[in-house]
């Protein structure tokens, strides 16, 4: 437990803003609106009067012992706060990636070049691989939390924070994170941004790339959601990989290349399950993509006992088994992460405790289904899952429709990202997240965003392929597709078990 003394300031700022300014990391999933309760801190001395959101989010006991929401607390007198060592520092990050047969073994790096750090900047986490000239895979890897999380967990809250005068603060945070990643891999701090010493290849979503370069995010957050620059281009000692649009970024283009979708005749589907579910469908001659606002349920967000993939997070479940839940690191359960959310939903459905409309059984309706000490899966949580899984399922169906094919015509489904790695495909099909007839053609590909950046590092002549994929993939706007709205309603129901 770390104690920090806080002095009041002249300008009125919340404790969260004050800590952000001092570079103290505090998770604030909702971006400081007082609705998620994740930024609570304990006042050891000088606790201010509780605010309305404090009373709504915290228990009477917590209030009495000095807990307050940092985002709703204004400091008017000197005080001392206590911070938990941040559990989020240990969010599990996937660095593993599977290359397809065609690209595997091509890991020959030009001998003359400086070392390259291939980086995937995710909204939640960062992953990097260090590639020395002439080296062969596997390369050393490092991971970290994206410390911009103290400005909100999703891209929209980061865009909002940037627009509200935190553009530099956000840029500084991500540059520090890159420095720290480099340090983990033995790169001295003063070298990481020195073009003589190292080159960085940056994959990631369009918002993360904007924040890194300090570009304005004004146009990203409002329709028609126009990006400033998502082309393949150099910046400082970095190369930024190209994206398709504001919501389908370089991380997805990297995935397309890593899965070799742009060279295959067979039609493949790439799905990245996050707060924005992105998907690409097609083959070498034609590809379509879409992004869908799935919400953060499969990242443990908006779930009453939800959490990121930290040690102790429930990640798997089987009702009736000797061990009905499994946690990351086999620790006592502290919350439920994305894959756990999916599994618990499936299990409740399988056991008839949720019906196909999503109604939770009477016995558990008020309190929720118990998962462990003080941990429940509530009726409202089921509703969040319904929204999320319907957005993904409907997005897939619209893409198939626009492409003019049925699911039979899809030869492979690649699940990208950390969630895709951990997800139980049978259970994902069981709740209607993924199409049933594609189950045996679906496989996780790990961190394909990092994989793309690594491939680019190994083979700089891939630039043309990256650029072509970024400009050639047509985006289908789901919100403007009437079929999507129709399917979105239908798919909120669960399949019959």
């Amino acid at each position, binding site marked *: 437990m770390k104690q920090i003394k806080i002095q009041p300031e002249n300008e009125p700022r919340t404790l969260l803003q004050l800590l952000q300014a001092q570079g103290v990391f505090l998770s604030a999933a909702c971006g400081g*609106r007082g609705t998620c309760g994740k930024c609570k801190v304990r006042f050891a001395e000088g606790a201010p009067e509780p605010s309305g*959101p404090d009373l709504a989010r915290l228990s009477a006991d917590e209030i009495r012992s000095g807990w307050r929401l940092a985002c709703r607390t204004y400091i008017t007198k000197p005080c001392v706060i206590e911070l938990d060592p941040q559990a989020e520092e240990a969010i599990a990050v996937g660095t593993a990636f599977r290359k397809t047969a065609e690209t595997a073994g091509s890991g020959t790096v030009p001998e003359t070049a400086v070392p390259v750090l291939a980086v995937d900047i995710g909204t939640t986490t960062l992953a990097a691989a260090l590639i020395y000239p002439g080296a062969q895979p596997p390369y050393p890897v490092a991971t970290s939390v994206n410390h911009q999380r103290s400005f909100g967990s999703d891209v929209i809250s980061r865009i909002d924070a940037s627009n509200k005068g935190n553009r530099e603060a956000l840029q500084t945070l991500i540059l520090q994170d890159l420095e720290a990643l480099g340090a983990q891999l033995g790169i001295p701090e003063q070298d990481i941004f020195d073009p003589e010493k190292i080159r960085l290849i940056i994959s990631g979503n369009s918002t993360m790339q904007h924040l890194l370069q300090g570009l304005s995010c004004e146009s990203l957050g409002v*329709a028609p959601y126009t990006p400033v620059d998502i082309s393949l281009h150099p910046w400082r000692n970095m190369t930024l990989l190209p994206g398709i649009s504001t919501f389908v970024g370089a991380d997805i283009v990297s995935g397309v290349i890593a899965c070799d979708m742009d060279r295959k005749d067979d039609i493949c589907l790439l799905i990245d399950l996050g707060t924005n579910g992105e998907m690409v469908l097609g083959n070498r001659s034609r590809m379509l993509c879409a992004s869908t606002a799935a919400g953060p349920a499969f990242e443990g967000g908006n779930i009453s006992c939800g959490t990121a993939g930290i040690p102790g997070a429930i990640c798997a479940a089987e009702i009736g088994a000797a061990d009905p839940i499994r946690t990351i690191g086999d620790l006592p359960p502290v919350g439920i992460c994305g894959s756990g959310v999916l599994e618990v939903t499936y299990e409740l459905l399988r056991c008839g405790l949720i019906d196909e409309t999503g109604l939770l059984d009477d016995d558990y309706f008020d309190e929720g289904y118990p998962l462990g000490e003080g941990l429940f899966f509530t009726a409202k949580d089921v509703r969040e899952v319904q929204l999320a899984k319907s957005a993904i399922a409907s997005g897939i169906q619209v893409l198939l429709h626009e492409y003019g094919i049925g699911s039979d015509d899809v030869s492979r489904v690649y699940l990208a990202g950390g969630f895709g790695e951990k997800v139980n495909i049978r259970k994902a099909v069981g709740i209607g997240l993924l199409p049933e007839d594609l189950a045996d053609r679906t496989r996780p590909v790990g961190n394909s965003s990092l994989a793309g950046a690594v491939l680019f590092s190994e083979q700089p002549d891939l630039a043309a392929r990256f650029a072509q994929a970024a400009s050639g993939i047509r985006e289908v*706007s789901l*919100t403007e597709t009437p079929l999507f709205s129709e399917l979105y309603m239908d798919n909120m*129901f669960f399949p019959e078990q």
Partner: protein
Amino acid sequence: MSILNEISELLQAGKRKQVAELCTQAIEQGIPAAEILNDGLMPGMDVIGEKFKEGEVFVPQVLIAARAMKAGTEVLKPYLNDSESTAKGKLCIGTVKGDLHDVGKNLVAMMMEGKGFEVIDLGVDVPPEVFVQTARDEHCDIVCCSALLTTTMPVMADIVKAFEEAGIRQDVKIMVGGAPVTDEFAAKIGADAYTPDAASAADKAIELVSEAN
């Protein structure tokens, strides 16, 4: 079960065809159209609204119930004379400029119709001046603004301002909603009401128009 109760039950189950059939039968039995509306269709929609608020039913069930309600009111329309069909009030609703999300907005519109409001749906990406002009031209009692994105939420403040500048702020009640919106935000921008869900929005709207009268 009386035929009106039956209509209510079938509406709750989302049986569009049967609701329309029973409405026709009820008319043939000589039941006044206004009574079928007020004691059959609307109570059914009220039950769905309540259940939605409690989490017992979800978005798609509200949608199919609303479709059934619509099928019923289509049957009744020719039989409702002007004074009887006078709505509870008139409102316009839209997702604010810069935002294309319409699920929540549509849900609110359905609930409002279920409560007997005449609803003008302005769609998505609606600029403040369109809210103002519609409210003025159509004599709306209430203006409902929806936003899903933190980045588009500030437009709601512009809407309140636009009504002030047009000099008709006191003629309308402004309601705001959407995932990132809070009570605190609504108060800050000077909106009249925020509700966390569509069913509460419809209840609140009834409250607002009865206060005004």
